[in-house]
Structure formats: C-alpha cells, structure tokens
C-alpha cells in the first residue's frame, strides 16, 4: 500500500466537485459586473443597485421574518416536545410510533406539502375555514392567503409542520445520551423540571441545538418550493422571500447580471452561517 493511495482515490471526485463550485462562482462574478443586455463592463453597478432597490429590502425583511419565525417556533416546539416525550413516555412501541409519525412529513416533497397547504388554506375550497366554522370558532371565512399576516402564518406553518419533527428527533436523540442515574439523582435532590433541564440535560443538547439551528437557518433562508405553490409571494410582496425575488429577476425579467449580484449576496450570508457550523464541526471531526 502506497501512502498516496487515499489521495488518488479522493482526487477525481474532488476535482469534479471543485470545478462545479468554482465555475459557477466565477461565472456569477463575471455576470454581476456586466450589463445583462449589452454585456458591457459596469463595475459594481449591480451591487450598488441592490442598495437602491426597495423590493430587495422588502424581500430581505420578509425573509428575516420567515427565518426567525420558523427558527424560534421549530426549536422551541421541537425541544419542548423532546423533553416531554423523553421524560414521560417510556414504552418502546409508543416511541417507535412517534418516530414514524414524524419521519413522514420530512420525506414529503415540499411541492406536495405546498399542494396540501393550498387545499387547506385556499379561499373557496379550504377545509380549515369549514372546520373552524363547524366548531363555531369563526362566523365568516378567514382569508388566510390574502392578508399579509395570515399569509406569512400559512407559509411558516408549512415549514414548521415539515421540520419541527427534525428538531424533535435530534433533541430527543441527544437526550438519550443523558445518564439516567444523574437525572434520577438530581430529581431525588429535589431539582424541578427547569433545573433538571438547565443543569443536567442542556449540556448534552448545546452542540446539537447549534447544529440544528444552522441547518434550519440555511434551509429557511433559501425557501422556495412550497411558497411558490402556496402564495407565489403574495399578497403584494409580503411573502416574496429572497429566493423568490431572485428567481423573479433571473427567470421573469431575465436580468441575469442583477440576479448574479444578488445570488453572491445569498452565498455570502450562507457562508457566514456555515463558518459558525464548521468551527464546531472542526472539533467533532478531529475526534
């Protein structure tokens, strides 16, 4: 066995992958410095334009609301549920059922989830209004997709429905690492639920929570599929998130240069998020 065998094995895929990353990057940089129609060099004009583009800032704001909303709800709900199930449900088959139930939404294609959500929220056929009216909670239809607040709620709800289970599963897994003796001892010592969490359970979850948050942040930051099917960005531009706006510019306006400039911005934000993760992973991989 020669010492360079591993490098030979790794080389082909790495070269192909690297070129598939570097070429798009260079291509985008080159596009972003030109006028999309004439191809003439315009310097940083396309980047400067973003600073003077109210739609861009509106999409940033909408994305910020969406990302923070889903992140907070998913992490809090997922964590709370994991603690609840971990502390109370002991039976093996019950846990198995919970797993299966929660795996289902995660493998459902976002497009299909968008279709489901449309069938639930849509103004004329939506089942949600029918149910709410039947139990007497509302008298007149709620226009879920026509009001900015409820439309945002609707798109967030789909994400939470699909990915809160992911947070739950990871947290729940993390909790299995907590030694039962330690937890029992703390309980006997009279620690209440909160203290038990803060001092015994949380240390096991800390790094997992970071992992989960980086994953969810980058995924929600680029959300596209289900929003496209559900609201298409409306009403107005209230759910027109960054990726939808970028898509609009690239494939409706065909202003590829401006799209390239904006996509470099998206790449920058994603890279920052990843660098947080990689610092933590650096330690894990070196084990």
């Amino acid at each position, binding site marked *: 066995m020669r010492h360079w065998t591993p490098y030979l094995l790794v080389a082909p895929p790495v070269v192909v992958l690297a070129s598939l990353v570097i070429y798009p990057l260079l291509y985008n940089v080159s596009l972003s410095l030109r*006028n999309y129609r004439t191809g003439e060099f315009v310097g940083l004009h396309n980047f400067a334009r973003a600073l003077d583009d109210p739609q861009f800032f509106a999409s940033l704001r909408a994305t910020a609301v969406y990302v923070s909303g889903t992140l907070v709800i998913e992490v809090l709900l997922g964590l709370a549920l994991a603690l609840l199930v971990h502390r109370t449900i002991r039976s093996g088959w019950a846990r198995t059922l919970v797993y299966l139930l929660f795996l289902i939404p995660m493998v459902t294609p976002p497009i299909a989830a968008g279709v489901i959500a449309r069938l639930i929220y849509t103004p004329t056929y939506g089942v949600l209004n029918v149910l709410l009216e039947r139990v007497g909670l509302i008298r007149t*239809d709620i226009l879920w997709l026509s009001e900015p607040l409820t439309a945002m709620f609707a798109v967030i709800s789909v994400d939470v429905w699909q990915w809160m289970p992911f947070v739950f599963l990871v947290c729940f897994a993390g909790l299995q690492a907590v030694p039962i003796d330690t937890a029992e001892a703390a309980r006997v010592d009279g620690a209440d639920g909160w203290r038990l969490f803060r001092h015994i359970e949380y240390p096991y979850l800390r790094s997992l929570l970071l992992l989960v948050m980086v994953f969810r942040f980058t995924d929600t930051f680029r959300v596209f599929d289900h929003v496209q099917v559900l609201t298409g960005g409306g009403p107005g531009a209230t759910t027109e998130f960054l990726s939808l706006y970028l898509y609009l510019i690239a494939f409706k306006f065909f202003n590829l240069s401006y799209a390239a400039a904006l996509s470099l911005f998206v790449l920058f934000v994603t890279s920052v998020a990843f660098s947080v993760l990689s610092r933590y992973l650096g330690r894990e991989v070196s084990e």
Partner: protein
Amino acid sequence: MKTGRAKLAVLMLGILILTSTAIAGPGLPPKPAKLTMAVVAGGETKGLKAILPTWEREMGVKVELVEFPYPTLYEKLVTAFQANASTFDLLIADDPWMPKFGSESWLVPLDSTFGYKRDNDIFPVVYDLGSWPPPRGPVPPGESSKARHLYAITLVGNVEFFMYRKDLVSAPNTWDDVVANAKKVNDSSKPFYGFVIRGAKGNPVISEFTPVLLSFGARIFDNNWRVILNSKAAIDALTFFTKTLKSYAPPGVANYDAAERAREIATGRAAQGFIWPAEITDIVENPSVSQVVGKLGYTLAPAGPGGKHAPLIGNWLLAIPKGSKNQRWAYEFILWATSAKMQKPYAMGGGIPFRKSVLLDAQMNKTFPFFKAMADSLAAPAEWRPRTSEWFAVEAILGTHVNAALAGVETPDEAITKAAREIEQHMKEAGYYR
C-alpha cells in the same frame, strides 16, 4: 468507368424509390415522426385537442402537446430558446411575449420563409400582434431598423370582455352602470356579490386592472417609453378598482385567480365580472358544473369617465422556433389549424375562434352566445400590452403593487408612485434611456 456510372444510376434510382414513399406532397420534406408543441395547460387548447385527431388521420404526422401552466410557459420557452435546443417544433405564445421573441429573433418568419398570404377573414389586429417590429405604437430602441415580418398567427382569439347576470341586471355600458348594478344586487348576508375581481398577484391582477386603467384614460408609457403612469387618472382608476369595486367583491379577492372568479359566478354567488372566453365553455356555461347556464350576458368592457372602452387582447399565437428541425411541416400544421375549413370544427370542439365568419355567424352565436361580444372587442380594436420585451418585468412590478393596494397593504397613491418609480428604474436598466 462504365460500370461505375451504371452503379451510380442504380444507386440514384434506389434513393428515389426509397425517398418517394416518404414524400407526402409536392415540395414537402419527408414526414417527421412527430411534431412537438409547447402549449399552455388549461381550456385554451380544448379546440386544438378536438381537431388534432383529424390532422393526424389526414396527414399521418403525430403532434405531441407538452403542457405548461401559464406562469411557467414563458420562462420555459425562453430557456429552451436560449439553449437553442430543437426541443419544440411549434408553440403557442401569449401575445405580450411577441416583443421578446421578436427582438431576440427566435422565431421563423412565416411570410419570407414560406410565403404566407394574409386573409381578409382574419381581424387585422391578429396580424399586428404577430408582426415584429410592431406596425403601430412605440418601438423599442434598436428594433425600428429591423425589417418587419409576420412571425405568428393567432390560434386562440382570446380577448377580455364583460359578463353579467342578465336575469338580474341590465347590460352595463359604463363603470357607473356596473356600480349601479352591483349596488342593486349586492347582499353580503346571502352572500351575493355585485362584482368579482380576479386579484391575484402578477399577471392575473394586471389582466383585470389594465382595462380599468386604460378606460380611465391613463397610460403606462408615452411614445418614447417614458413612464407616465404616475397620473391622476391612474390613481383614480386604482382607487375605483381597490375601493369602489372591491366593496362589492367577495372578501379574499386579492388571492383570486381566474379559477376562483369563475367558481363564484358558476355557483351563483356573484353578478358581474370580466371574463376570458376559455372560462365560458369550460365553466360558467358548462352544465355539469355551473348553476347559471343561460343566465349570463356578455358585452364589451365597460367605458370609463371619458367614454373609452378598453377591452384587453390576449391572443394565443402559433409560431415556429428557429431551433425546430421540422419547420416546413410545422408551417403546414399552422396553415391547416388556422384554415377556414377547420375553424368550425375547432369552435364546435370548444376552441376559441378568431375568424370573422365564425364569430359573426348567427347559428354559431346561438350555441356560443359570447361570440358577438368577442367580435366587437376584437374590432374595437382591443388594447394590447405595450410592445416591449420588458413587459414581463413591468407586469411583475405593477402586479405586485396593484395587488398590495387591493389587499390594503398600500394606498392607491403609494402603489402607483412606487410602481412608476420601479418601472422607470427597470426601463433605464434595460437601456431604453439614460
């Protein structure tokens, strides 16, 4: 040497025999296995589907339809053209896309390539739509020097007009009539609505609002593509649209597309609204789903304060992309599908016709009560969307703000001001002016 010649003769004879079986008519190349055609998904292709079996039987060439939902068909065509792929032999294009296709020279000119002859039975506006550069109105910079050619011919004579419950209200001529009608029948306790708006973001709300905007005398561009949208007329039109009309509309119209609008009419919950022909045969006059069959009247788009009617045209045009490897046969298909001979079977099969002879035919008008309204709208002549390849961006920008005003997120004043500013910014970027 001698045997060489003899061999050559045999070879040529052989080739002749082999190829002659594949030749269908004089001057036509061999039959392709099939023609691939990009079409919009929905009722617009009903008539086409009805006559396709006849074509396949008569000509022995299969036509494969690839359906795309309206919002993605344009993107799909543009990306296919940019890839210069031989993906499609034929396509149907919404007429506002012609400027983009024309200025990029993506289509085969029908007149200079195949010698297409104009037909008096077809409305002149149809030929205006399919020509590039446009024969009237402002021409985008750099395009006016190009020779004008005909690139496409209408297949679906779509034009937007007005429908009303003739059993409840009288035919409106002006927007004041519409409001009076709405006031008379509106009853939110039932509920029954005086007017139903197709208000979804983007193309839907713009199709709905443009006839209002133009009938109020407002315009988006002047003759030099300067944005003149920010005017009192435009703000009045948007205020009328988002305040007056909306007060008689079902709640939630800011998210209604054509499907929801047709459903409100078909289920007998609304009295008036705009309509495109495809919705009529498919839904509101379709006995299996509609409760108001025979109760609807059709008329020209209502006139604004100045008495101007502004029906919006939205023809679907047949054209041949330059990437096609079967251009000649594609042209044969266009000629056949748009011929006078096929127009009646096409209309009877649920197609939207475009020939005067069929639209004005008394017998046909008994079966299809809206043909007269269509002919009137086409002859008006109907308004077209500004002939610029940037229309998509303009529509997206304006469509976002009009929708925001309809949803109450922006005031009409705000929406018009913002839209005008962003449209101007975009046109500048596109090189229309500095």
